Protein backbone atom coordinates (compact mmCIF):
# COMPACT_ATOMS: atom_id res chain seq x y z
CA UNK A 1 0.00 0.00 0.00
CA UNK A 2 1.29 3.38 -0.96
CA UNK A 3 1.35 5.84 1.92
CA UNK A 4 0.06 8.75 -0.05
CA UNK A 5 0.53 11.20 2.78
CA UNK A 6 4.27 10.62 2.51
CA UNK A 7 4.30 10.95 -1.26
CA UNK A 8 1.90 13.74 -2.11
CA UNK A 9 2.99 17.36 -2.06
CA UNK A 10 3.21 18.64 1.50
CA UNK A 11 1.94 22.00 0.37
CA UNK A 12 -1.09 20.52 -1.38
CA UNK A 13 -1.90 18.38 1.64
CA UNK A 14 -1.56 21.27 4.03
CA UNK A 15 -4.26 23.22 2.24
CA UNK A 16 -7.55 22.56 3.95
CA UNK A 17 -10.56 21.97 1.72
CA UNK A 18 -13.08 24.76 1.81
CA UNK A 19 -14.78 24.36 5.21
CA UNK A 20 -18.14 25.28 3.81
CA UNK A 21 -18.23 22.22 1.53
CA UNK A 22 -19.66 20.06 4.30
CA UNK A 23 -22.47 22.51 4.91
CA UNK A 24 -23.21 22.65 1.18
CA UNK A 25 -23.25 18.85 0.95
CA UNK A 26 -25.91 18.69 3.66
CA UNK A 27 -27.83 21.40 1.87
CA UNK A 28 -27.67 19.55 -1.45
CA UNK A 29 -29.26 16.51 0.17
CA UNK A 30 -32.21 18.40 1.63
CA UNK A 31 -35.52 19.12 -0.04
CA UNK A 32 -37.65 22.25 0.22
CA UNK A 33 -34.80 24.50 1.26
CA UNK A 34 -35.05 28.17 0.37
CA UNK A 35 -31.48 29.01 -0.43
CA UNK A 36 -29.75 32.37 -0.30
CA UNK A 37 -26.29 30.92 -0.72
CA UNK A 38 -25.25 31.17 -4.35
CA UNK A 39 -22.38 33.35 -5.40
CA UNK A 40 -23.38 33.89 -8.99
CA UNK A 41 -25.93 35.90 -10.97
CA UNK A 42 -29.44 34.50 -11.45
CA UNK A 43 -29.67 35.97 -14.95
CA UNK A 44 -28.89 33.82 -17.94
CA UNK A 45 -26.15 35.28 -20.14
CA UNK A 46 -27.85 37.81 -22.45
CA UNK A 47 -28.96 36.11 -25.65
CA UNK A 48 -26.91 38.18 -28.10
CA UNK A 49 -23.77 37.14 -26.22
CA UNK A 50 -24.72 33.47 -26.30
CA UNK A 51 -25.50 33.80 -29.97
CA UNK A 52 -22.02 35.18 -30.69
CA UNK A 53 -20.51 31.99 -29.26
CA UNK A 54 -22.93 29.81 -31.21
CA UNK A 55 -22.02 31.69 -34.40
CA UNK A 56 -18.32 31.26 -33.64
CA UNK A 57 -18.78 27.52 -33.22
CA UNK A 58 -20.87 27.32 -36.40
CA UNK A 59 -18.12 29.13 -38.26
CA UNK A 60 -15.63 26.54 -37.08
CA UNK A 61 -13.79 28.67 -34.53
CA UNK A 62 -12.75 25.58 -32.64
CA UNK A 63 -8.99 26.08 -32.43
CA UNK A 64 -6.65 27.49 -29.80
CA UNK A 65 -6.25 31.22 -29.94
CA UNK A 66 -2.98 33.03 -29.29
CA UNK A 67 -1.92 32.65 -25.66
CA UNK A 68 -2.94 36.13 -24.59
CA UNK A 69 -6.29 35.78 -26.33
CA UNK A 70 -7.83 37.07 -29.57
CA UNK A 71 -6.47 40.47 -30.56
CA UNK A 72 -9.97 41.97 -31.11
CA UNK A 73 -10.95 40.77 -27.65
CA UNK A 74 -7.96 42.41 -26.02
CA UNK A 75 -8.60 45.58 -28.01
CA UNK A 76 -12.19 45.61 -26.77
CA UNK A 77 -11.10 45.01 -23.18
CA UNK A 78 -8.74 47.94 -23.57
CA UNK A 79 -11.58 50.20 -24.78
CA UNK A 80 -13.98 48.89 -22.14
CA UNK A 81 -11.74 49.57 -19.13
CA UNK A 82 -11.00 53.02 -20.53
CA UNK A 83 -14.68 53.74 -21.08
CA UNK A 84 -15.94 52.48 -17.75
CA UNK A 85 -13.08 52.91 -15.31
CA UNK A 86 -10.70 55.41 -16.97
CA UNK A 87 -7.93 52.83 -17.08
CA UNK A 88 -5.26 52.81 -19.80
CA UNK A 89 -3.99 49.39 -20.83
CA UNK A 90 -2.68 48.50 -24.27
CA UNK A 91 -3.50 45.13 -25.78
CA UNK A 92 -0.07 43.73 -24.78
CA UNK A 93 -0.81 44.57 -21.16
CA UNK A 94 -3.91 42.37 -21.17
CA UNK A 95 -4.06 38.57 -20.86
CA UNK A 96 -7.38 36.81 -21.20
CA UNK A 97 -7.70 34.04 -18.64
CA UNK A 98 -9.87 31.18 -17.49
CA UNK A 99 -12.01 33.36 -15.25
CA UNK A 100 -10.93 35.87 -12.68
CA UNK A 101 -9.70 32.82 -10.78
CA UNK A 102 -6.83 32.19 -13.16
CA UNK A 103 -6.07 35.90 -13.22
CA UNK A 104 -5.54 35.77 -9.45
CA UNK A 105 -3.33 32.69 -9.80
CA UNK A 106 -1.19 34.30 -12.52
CA UNK A 107 -0.67 37.45 -10.50
CA UNK A 108 0.45 35.54 -7.42
CA UNK A 109 2.75 33.21 -9.33
CA UNK A 110 4.36 36.02 -11.26
CA UNK A 111 5.14 38.03 -8.14
CA UNK A 112 5.79 35.65 -5.28
CA UNK A 113 9.09 34.06 -4.33
CA UNK A 114 9.21 31.49 -1.51
CA UNK A 115 8.71 33.21 1.83
CA UNK A 116 7.18 36.40 0.45
CA UNK A 117 4.28 37.63 2.52
CA UNK A 118 0.91 38.34 0.96
CA UNK A 119 -1.45 40.55 2.91
CA UNK A 120 -5.03 39.37 2.61
CA UNK A 121 -7.88 41.37 4.16
CA UNK A 122 -10.65 39.13 5.52
CA UNK A 123 -13.51 38.35 5.39
CA UNK A 124 -12.98 37.81 1.69
CA UNK A 125 -13.25 35.32 -1.14
CA UNK A 126 -11.55 32.09 -0.14
CA UNK A 127 -9.01 31.53 -2.92
CA UNK A 128 -6.32 34.10 -2.12
CA UNK A 129 -4.63 32.31 0.79
CA UNK A 130 -4.39 28.87 -0.82
CA UNK A 131 -3.20 30.30 -4.15
CA UNK A 132 -0.56 32.39 -2.36
CA UNK A 133 0.64 29.26 -0.54
CA UNK A 134 0.78 27.22 -3.74
CA UNK A 135 3.02 29.94 -5.13
CA UNK A 136 5.28 29.59 -2.07
CA UNK A 137 4.00 32.71 -0.37
CA UNK A 138 2.93 33.23 3.22
CA UNK A 139 -0.60 34.61 3.68
CA UNK A 140 -0.89 37.33 6.31
CA UNK A 141 -4.55 37.85 7.14
CA UNK A 142 -5.82 41.24 8.24
CA UNK A 143 -9.18 41.23 10.02
CA UNK A 144 -11.51 43.97 8.82
CA UNK A 145 -14.11 45.48 11.13
CA UNK A 146 -17.76 46.23 10.72
CA UNK A 147 -17.20 49.64 12.31
CA UNK A 148 -14.91 50.57 9.39
CA UNK A 149 -17.54 49.34 6.93
CA UNK A 150 -15.28 46.34 6.29
CA UNK A 151 -12.75 48.52 4.46
CA UNK A 152 -9.00 48.25 4.81
CA UNK A 153 -7.78 51.13 6.99
CA UNK A 154 -4.27 52.61 6.60
CA UNK A 155 -3.49 51.69 10.22
CA UNK A 156 -4.34 48.05 9.68
CA UNK A 157 -2.33 47.89 6.50
CA UNK A 158 0.68 49.53 8.08
CA UNK A 159 0.61 47.15 11.01
CA UNK A 160 0.59 44.12 8.71
CA UNK A 161 3.54 45.18 6.54
CA UNK A 162 6.93 43.62 7.29
CA UNK A 163 10.20 43.64 5.32
CA UNK A 164 8.98 40.40 3.71
CA UNK A 165 5.72 41.85 2.38
CA UNK A 166 5.50 41.55 -1.40
CA UNK A 167 1.85 41.91 -2.24
CA UNK A 168 -1.43 43.28 -0.95
CA UNK A 169 -4.66 41.71 -2.13
CA UNK A 170 -7.35 44.35 -2.46
CA UNK A 171 -10.68 42.50 -2.74
CA UNK A 172 -13.23 45.25 -3.38
CA UNK A 173 -16.17 45.30 -4.08
CA UNK A 174 -16.03 42.54 -1.52
CA UNK A 175 -17.46 39.08 -1.40
CA UNK A 176 -18.91 38.41 1.26
CA UNK A 177 -19.37 41.80 2.93
CA UNK A 178 -20.50 43.87 -0.06
CA UNK A 179 -18.16 46.64 1.07
CA UNK A 180 -16.44 48.95 -1.42
CA UNK A 181 -13.49 51.30 -1.12
CA UNK A 182 -13.94 54.82 -2.44
CA UNK A 183 -11.32 57.24 -3.71
CA UNK A 184 -10.38 58.96 -0.40
CA UNK A 185 -9.86 55.60 1.30
CA UNK A 186 -7.88 54.24 -1.63
CA UNK A 187 -5.62 57.30 -1.67
CA UNK A 188 -4.46 56.58 1.86
CA UNK A 189 -3.76 52.95 1.00
CA UNK A 190 -1.90 53.98 -2.16
CA UNK A 191 0.43 56.26 -0.19
CA UNK A 192 1.50 53.39 2.04
CA UNK A 193 1.94 51.01 -0.87
CA UNK A 194 4.23 53.42 -2.64
CA UNK A 195 6.18 54.25 0.49
CA UNK A 196 6.68 50.60 1.38
CA UNK A 197 7.36 49.58 -2.23
CA UNK A 198 4.91 46.68 -2.41
CA UNK A 199 2.50 45.51 -5.11
CA UNK A 200 -1.28 45.28 -5.27
CA UNK A 201 -3.48 42.54 -6.66
CA UNK A 202 -6.81 44.29 -7.09
CA UNK A 203 -9.65 41.78 -7.53
CA UNK A 204 -12.22 43.87 -9.40
CA UNK A 205 -14.50 41.08 -10.56
CA UNK A 206 -17.49 42.89 -8.98
CA UNK A 207 -16.50 46.36 -10.19
CA UNK A 208 -19.63 46.80 -12.31
CA UNK A 209 -21.84 45.98 -9.35
CA UNK A 210 -21.07 49.12 -7.38
CA UNK A 211 -24.04 51.12 -6.13
CA UNK A 212 -24.36 54.83 -5.25
CA UNK A 213 -21.38 55.92 -7.32
CA UNK A 214 -18.96 54.26 -9.66
CA UNK A 215 -16.14 51.86 -8.90
CA UNK A 216 -12.69 53.40 -8.60
CA UNK A 217 -9.72 51.21 -9.40
CA UNK A 218 -6.62 51.74 -7.33
CA UNK A 219 -4.63 51.49 -10.57
CA UNK A 220 -6.11 54.81 -11.67
CA UNK A 221 -4.40 56.62 -8.75
CA UNK A 222 -1.07 58.40 -9.23
CA UNK A 223 1.89 56.04 -9.15
CA UNK A 224 -0.24 52.94 -8.71
CA UNK A 225 -0.49 51.60 -12.25
CA UNK A 226 3.12 50.40 -12.24
CA UNK A 227 2.60 48.35 -9.07
CA UNK A 228 -0.91 47.02 -9.61
CA UNK A 229 -2.28 43.89 -11.25
CA UNK A 230 -6.00 43.97 -11.82
CA UNK A 231 -7.82 40.63 -11.92
CA UNK A 232 -11.26 40.89 -13.45
CA UNK A 233 -13.61 39.09 -15.77
CA UNK A 234 -16.99 38.51 -17.32
CA UNK A 235 -18.58 36.24 -14.69
CA UNK A 236 -20.45 38.77 -12.60
CA UNK A 237 -20.80 41.80 -14.86
CA UNK A 238 -22.31 39.89 -17.78
CA UNK A 239 -23.71 36.86 -15.93
CA UNK A 240 -21.14 34.56 -17.57
CA UNK A 241 -19.85 32.36 -14.76
CA UNK A 242 -19.89 29.13 -16.75
CA UNK A 243 -17.96 30.57 -19.68
CA UNK A 244 -14.72 30.81 -17.72
CA UNK A 245 -13.50 34.10 -19.08
CA UNK A 246 -11.49 36.73 -17.25
CA UNK A 247 -8.42 38.87 -17.72
CA UNK A 248 -5.42 40.50 -16.11
CA UNK A 249 -4.44 44.11 -16.58
CA UNK A 250 -0.82 44.84 -15.68
CA UNK A 251 2.21 46.78 -16.91
CA UNK A 252 4.11 45.08 -19.71
CA UNK A 253 6.99 43.82 -17.51
CA UNK A 254 4.55 41.97 -15.25
CA UNK A 255 2.36 40.79 -18.13
CA UNK A 256 5.35 39.20 -19.86
CA UNK A 257 5.99 37.02 -16.81
CA UNK A 258 2.34 36.14 -16.33
CA UNK A 259 1.97 35.25 -19.99
CA UNK A 260 4.68 32.59 -19.70
CA UNK A 261 2.86 30.93 -16.82
CA UNK A 262 -0.45 31.13 -18.67
CA UNK A 263 1.17 29.78 -21.84
CA UNK A 264 2.59 26.67 -20.16
CA UNK A 265 -0.25 25.94 -17.72
CA UNK A 266 -3.35 26.90 -19.71
CA UNK A 267 -2.54 27.71 -23.38
CA UNK A 268 -5.53 30.00 -23.84
CA UNK A 269 -8.98 30.84 -22.54
CA UNK A 270 -11.85 28.92 -24.19
CA UNK A 271 -12.15 30.11 -27.79
CA UNK A 272 -15.95 30.26 -28.08
CA UNK A 273 -16.06 32.17 -24.80
CA UNK A 274 -13.58 34.68 -26.20
CA UNK A 275 -15.91 35.38 -29.13
CA UNK A 276 -18.79 35.80 -26.71
CA UNK A 277 -16.59 38.18 -24.75
CA UNK A 278 -16.07 40.42 -27.78
CA UNK A 279 -19.84 40.69 -28.25
CA UNK A 280 -20.35 41.39 -24.54
CA UNK A 281 -17.85 44.25 -24.59
CA UNK A 282 -19.10 45.71 -27.88
CA UNK A 283 -22.82 45.58 -27.16
CA UNK A 284 -23.30 44.68 -23.51
CA UNK A 285 -23.18 47.98 -21.61
CA UNK A 286 -26.97 48.06 -21.50
CA UNK A 287 -27.11 44.52 -20.14
CA UNK A 288 -24.83 45.57 -17.32
CA UNK A 289 -27.00 48.57 -16.49
CA UNK A 290 -30.16 46.49 -16.58
CA UNK A 291 -28.84 43.79 -14.26
CA UNK A 292 -27.21 46.27 -11.95
CA UNK A 293 -30.46 48.25 -11.57
CA UNK A 294 -32.22 45.00 -10.77
CA UNK A 295 -29.62 44.01 -8.14
CA UNK A 296 -29.75 47.48 -6.66
CA UNK A 297 -33.50 47.26 -6.08
CA UNK A 298 -33.13 43.85 -4.46
CA UNK A 299 -30.28 45.19 -2.34
CA UNK A 300 -32.46 47.98 -0.96
CA UNK A 301 -35.29 45.53 -0.47
CA UNK A 302 -33.35 42.86 1.39
CA UNK A 303 -31.54 45.33 3.65
CA UNK A 304 -34.89 46.85 4.53
CA UNK A 305 -36.50 43.44 5.18
CA UNK A 306 -33.60 42.31 7.35
CA UNK A 307 -33.60 45.50 9.38
CA UNK A 308 -37.37 45.36 9.84
CA UNK A 309 -36.92 41.81 11.11
CA UNK A 310 -34.51 43.12 13.74
CA UNK A 311 -31.17 42.27 12.12
CA UNK A 312 -28.29 44.67 12.36
CA UNK A 313 -27.18 45.04 8.83
CA UNK A 314 -24.65 47.46 7.47
CA UNK A 315 -25.53 48.78 4.00
CA UNK A 316 -23.50 46.94 1.36
CA UNK A 317 -22.53 49.07 -1.64
CA UNK A 318 -21.13 46.42 -3.94
CA UNK A 319 -21.49 42.87 -5.31
CA UNK A 320 -24.74 41.03 -4.47
CA UNK A 321 -24.33 40.10 -0.83
CA UNK A 322 -25.44 41.40 2.54
CA UNK A 323 -23.49 40.53 5.65
CA UNK A 324 -25.76 41.01 8.68
CA UNK A 325 -24.43 40.89 12.20
CA UNK A 326 -26.11 37.96 13.96
CA UNK A 327 -24.05 37.97 17.14
CA UNK A 328 -26.89 39.28 19.31
CA UNK A 329 -28.72 35.97 18.95
CA UNK A 330 -26.08 34.32 21.09
CA UNK A 331 -25.27 31.49 18.69
CA UNK A 332 -22.01 31.15 16.83
CA UNK A 333 -22.36 31.64 13.07
CA UNK A 334 -22.23 27.97 12.21
CA UNK A 335 -24.82 26.98 14.80
CA UNK A 336 -27.06 29.82 13.71
CA UNK A 337 -26.85 28.79 10.06
CA UNK A 338 -27.22 25.06 10.60
CA UNK A 339 -30.18 25.47 12.96
CA UNK A 340 -31.75 27.85 10.47
CA UNK A 341 -31.25 25.24 7.80
CA UNK A 342 -32.64 22.30 9.78
CA UNK A 343 -35.44 24.09 11.59
CA UNK A 344 -36.69 26.72 9.16
CA UNK A 345 -35.27 25.38 5.90
CA UNK A 346 -33.42 28.50 4.86
CA UNK A 347 -29.79 28.36 3.76
CA UNK A 348 -27.32 31.19 4.28
CA UNK A 349 -23.54 31.00 4.61
CA UNK A 350 -21.87 31.36 8.02
CA UNK A 351 -19.45 34.29 8.04
CA UNK A 352 -16.68 32.02 9.27
CA UNK A 353 -16.55 30.42 5.80
CA UNK A 354 -14.64 33.58 4.82
CA UNK A 355 -12.18 33.66 7.70
CA UNK A 356 -12.48 33.39 11.45
CA UNK A 357 -13.19 37.11 11.73
CA UNK A 358 -16.50 36.40 9.98
CA UNK A 359 -17.70 35.00 13.32
CA UNK A 360 -20.92 36.72 14.32
CA UNK A 361 -21.95 37.35 10.71
CA UNK A 362 -23.61 35.51 7.84
CA UNK A 363 -23.51 36.04 4.11
CA UNK A 364 -26.82 36.36 2.34
CA UNK A 365 -26.90 36.52 -1.44
CA UNK A 366 -29.57 38.55 -3.18
CA UNK A 367 -28.96 37.09 -6.63
CA UNK A 368 -32.55 35.83 -6.47
CA UNK A 369 -36.01 37.07 -7.43
CA UNK A 370 -37.81 39.46 -5.10
CA UNK A 371 -40.43 36.81 -4.45
CA UNK A 372 -37.75 34.32 -3.40
CA UNK A 373 -35.98 36.86 -1.22
CA UNK A 374 -39.21 37.88 0.39
CA UNK A 375 -40.27 34.37 1.38
CA UNK A 376 -36.76 33.47 2.56
CA UNK A 377 -36.43 36.54 4.75
CA UNK A 378 -39.85 35.87 6.26
CA UNK A 379 -38.67 32.42 7.36
CA UNK A 380 -35.42 33.89 8.56
CA UNK A 381 -37.36 36.38 10.69
CA UNK A 382 -39.46 33.56 12.19
CA UNK A 383 -36.28 31.76 13.13
CA UNK A 384 -34.74 34.85 14.70
CA UNK A 385 -37.87 35.40 16.78
CA UNK A 386 -37.80 31.82 17.94
CA UNK A 387 -34.18 32.17 19.05
CA UNK A 388 -34.99 35.42 20.79
CA UNK A 389 -37.79 33.81 22.79
CA UNK A 390 -35.72 30.75 23.53
CA UNK A 391 -32.94 32.86 24.94
CA UNK A 392 -35.26 35.46 26.45
CA UNK A 393 -33.38 38.16 24.58
Amino acid sequence: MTDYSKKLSKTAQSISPSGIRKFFDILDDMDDVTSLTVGQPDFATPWHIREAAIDALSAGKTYYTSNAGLTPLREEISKYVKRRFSLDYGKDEIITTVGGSEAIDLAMRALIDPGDEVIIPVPSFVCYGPIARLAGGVPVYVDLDEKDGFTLTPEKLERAITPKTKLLVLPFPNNPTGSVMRLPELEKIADIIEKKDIFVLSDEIYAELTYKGRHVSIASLDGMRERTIIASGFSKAYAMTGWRLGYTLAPREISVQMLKIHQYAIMCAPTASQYAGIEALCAGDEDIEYMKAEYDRRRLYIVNCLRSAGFECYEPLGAFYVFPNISKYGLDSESFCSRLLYENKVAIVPGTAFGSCGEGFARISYAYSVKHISSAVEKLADFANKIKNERKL
Partner: protein
Amino acid sequence: MDILLEMLEKDARLTPEQIAIMTQKDEGDIKAAIDSYESRGVILGYKALVNWDKTEREYISAIIELKVTPQRDRGFEKIAEKIYNYPEVKSLYLMSGAYDFQVILEGKTLREVAQFVASKLAPIDGVISTATHFVLKKYKDNGCVFKVPEKDERINSI
Protein backbone atom coordinates in the same frame (compact mmCIF):
# COMPACT_ATOMS: atom_id res chain seq x y z
CA MET B 1 -42.33 57.78 -12.35
CA ASP B 2 -41.44 55.66 -15.36
CA ILE B 3 -39.51 53.21 -13.19
CA LEU B 4 -42.73 52.43 -11.32
CA LEU B 5 -44.46 51.56 -14.59
CA GLU B 6 -41.52 49.48 -15.74
CA MET B 7 -41.47 47.54 -12.49
CA LEU B 8 -45.21 46.89 -12.55
CA GLU B 9 -45.19 45.97 -16.21
CA LYS B 10 -42.67 43.26 -15.39
CA ASP B 11 -44.28 42.09 -12.16
CA ALA B 12 -47.74 43.40 -11.36
CA ARG B 13 -47.76 41.61 -8.03
CA LEU B 14 -45.17 43.88 -6.46
CA THR B 15 -46.86 45.70 -3.59
CA PRO B 16 -46.66 49.47 -3.16
CA GLU B 17 -44.63 48.78 -0.01
CA GLN B 18 -42.07 46.69 -1.90
CA ILE B 19 -41.82 49.24 -4.68
CA ALA B 20 -41.39 52.04 -2.15
CA ILE B 21 -38.48 50.21 -0.51
CA MET B 22 -36.82 49.37 -3.79
CA THR B 23 -37.04 52.88 -5.18
CA GLN B 24 -36.44 54.62 -1.84
CA LYS B 25 -39.69 56.52 -2.08
CA ASP B 26 -42.57 57.01 0.28
CA GLU B 27 -45.17 54.26 0.21
CA GLY B 28 -47.98 56.83 0.22
CA ASP B 29 -46.48 58.50 -2.84
CA ILE B 30 -46.28 55.17 -4.66
CA LYS B 31 -49.91 54.43 -3.87
CA ALA B 32 -50.95 57.88 -5.04
CA ALA B 33 -48.95 57.49 -8.25
CA ILE B 34 -50.57 54.13 -8.97
CA ASP B 35 -54.04 55.59 -8.29
CA SER B 36 -53.31 58.42 -10.64
CA TYR B 37 -52.02 56.09 -13.35
CA GLU B 38 -55.15 54.01 -13.00
CA SER B 39 -57.54 56.94 -13.10
CA ARG B 40 -55.81 58.42 -16.14
CA GLY B 41 -55.91 55.08 -17.91
CA VAL B 42 -52.12 54.74 -18.01
CA ILE B 43 -52.36 51.50 -16.07
CA LEU B 44 -55.30 49.63 -17.57
CA GLY B 45 -55.30 46.44 -15.55
CA TYR B 46 -53.36 43.61 -13.90
CA LYS B 47 -53.67 40.08 -15.20
CA ALA B 48 -52.15 36.65 -14.99
CA LEU B 49 -50.62 35.32 -18.20
CA VAL B 50 -52.29 31.95 -18.63
CA ASN B 51 -51.19 29.18 -20.92
CA TRP B 52 -54.59 27.59 -21.62
CA ASP B 53 -52.94 24.79 -23.57
CA LYS B 54 -51.90 23.35 -20.22
CA THR B 55 -55.45 23.25 -18.93
CA GLU B 56 -58.56 21.20 -19.70
CA ARG B 57 -60.33 24.15 -21.21
CA GLU B 58 -60.88 24.14 -24.94
CA TYR B 59 -59.27 27.15 -26.45
CA ILE B 60 -58.35 28.62 -29.79
CA SER B 61 -57.22 32.01 -30.93
CA ALA B 62 -57.12 33.62 -34.32
CA ILE B 63 -55.79 36.72 -35.97
CA ILE B 64 -58.18 38.36 -38.42
CA GLU B 65 -57.11 40.94 -40.93
CA LEU B 66 -59.86 43.35 -41.87
CA LYS B 67 -59.99 45.73 -44.77
CA VAL B 68 -62.53 48.51 -44.29
CA THR B 69 -63.76 51.73 -45.88
CA PRO B 70 -63.24 54.54 -43.37
CA GLN B 71 -66.39 56.52 -42.70
CA ARG B 72 -66.58 60.07 -43.87
CA ASP B 73 -66.87 61.92 -40.57
CA ARG B 74 -65.37 59.56 -37.98
CA GLY B 75 -62.69 57.73 -39.96
CA PHE B 76 -61.92 54.35 -38.42
CA GLU B 77 -63.18 55.13 -34.92
CA LYS B 78 -66.79 54.10 -35.40
CA ILE B 79 -65.91 50.75 -36.95
CA ALA B 80 -63.28 50.13 -34.27
CA GLU B 81 -65.82 50.74 -31.55
CA LYS B 82 -68.21 48.25 -33.08
CA ILE B 83 -65.49 45.64 -33.15
CA TYR B 84 -63.88 46.09 -29.75
CA ASN B 85 -67.14 46.01 -27.87
CA TYR B 86 -67.44 42.29 -28.49
CA PRO B 87 -65.97 40.46 -25.48
CA GLU B 88 -64.62 37.78 -27.84
CA VAL B 89 -62.21 40.39 -29.25
CA LYS B 90 -59.02 40.28 -27.17
CA SER B 91 -57.07 42.89 -29.08
CA LEU B 92 -57.69 45.33 -31.85
CA TYR B 93 -55.04 47.32 -33.68
CA LEU B 94 -55.26 49.79 -36.55
CA MET B 95 -52.44 48.83 -38.89
CA SER B 96 -50.30 50.42 -41.54
CA GLY B 97 -49.85 48.37 -44.71
CA ALA B 98 -51.96 45.96 -46.70
CA TYR B 99 -54.96 45.84 -44.38
CA ASP B 100 -56.56 48.16 -41.83
CA PHE B 101 -57.49 46.33 -38.64
CA GLN B 102 -55.92 43.40 -36.91
CA VAL B 103 -58.35 41.63 -34.62
CA ILE B 104 -57.26 38.98 -32.14
CA LEU B 105 -60.10 36.68 -31.28
CA GLU B 106 -60.36 33.98 -28.69
CA GLY B 107 -62.96 31.27 -28.58
CA LYS B 108 -63.57 27.70 -27.50
CA THR B 109 -63.57 26.06 -30.90
CA LEU B 110 -62.58 26.72 -34.45
CA ARG B 111 -66.21 26.66 -35.44
CA GLU B 112 -67.13 29.23 -32.82
CA VAL B 113 -64.46 31.63 -34.05
CA ALA B 114 -65.38 31.10 -37.70
CA GLN B 115 -69.00 31.70 -36.84
CA PHE B 116 -68.13 34.93 -35.08
CA VAL B 117 -66.21 36.24 -38.07
CA ALA B 118 -68.98 35.35 -40.46
CA SER B 119 -71.91 36.55 -38.42
CA LYS B 120 -70.46 39.48 -36.44
CA LEU B 121 -67.35 40.95 -38.05
CA ALA B 122 -67.94 40.54 -41.77
CA PRO B 123 -71.39 42.20 -41.78
CA ILE B 124 -70.21 45.37 -40.02
CA ASP B 125 -70.85 48.42 -42.18
CA GLY B 126 -67.67 49.41 -43.98
CA VAL B 127 -65.93 46.04 -43.71
CA ILE B 128 -64.75 45.05 -47.19
CA SER B 129 -62.95 41.80 -46.52
CA THR B 130 -61.70 39.48 -43.79
CA ALA B 131 -58.80 37.01 -43.69
CA THR B 132 -58.73 34.63 -40.75
CA HIS B 133 -55.53 32.99 -39.47
CA PHE B 134 -55.79 30.45 -36.68
CA VAL B 135 -52.97 30.27 -34.14
CA LEU B 136 -51.44 26.80 -34.07
CA LYS B 137 -49.08 27.26 -31.17
CA LYS B 138 -48.00 30.10 -28.93
CA TYR B 139 -44.32 30.35 -28.11
CA LYS B 140 -44.21 33.72 -26.48
CA ASP B 141 -46.82 36.24 -25.42
CA ASN B 142 -46.44 39.60 -23.73
CA GLY B 143 -42.74 38.98 -23.24
CA CYS B 144 -43.30 35.58 -21.63
CA VAL B 145 -42.02 32.38 -23.18
CA PHE B 146 -44.50 29.51 -22.90
CA LYS B 147 -42.47 27.01 -20.96
CA VAL B 148 -42.17 25.57 -17.50
CA PRO B 149 -39.82 27.67 -15.35
CA GLU B 150 -36.43 26.06 -15.15
CA LYS B 151 -35.12 24.73 -11.88
CA ASP B 152 -32.39 26.82 -10.27
CA GLU B 153 -29.33 24.94 -11.47
CA ARG B 154 -26.80 27.14 -9.76
CA ILE B 155 -24.55 25.25 -7.41
CA ASN B 156 -23.92 26.51 -3.92
CA SER B 157 -20.68 28.39 -4.05
CA ILE B 158 -18.69 30.88 -2.12
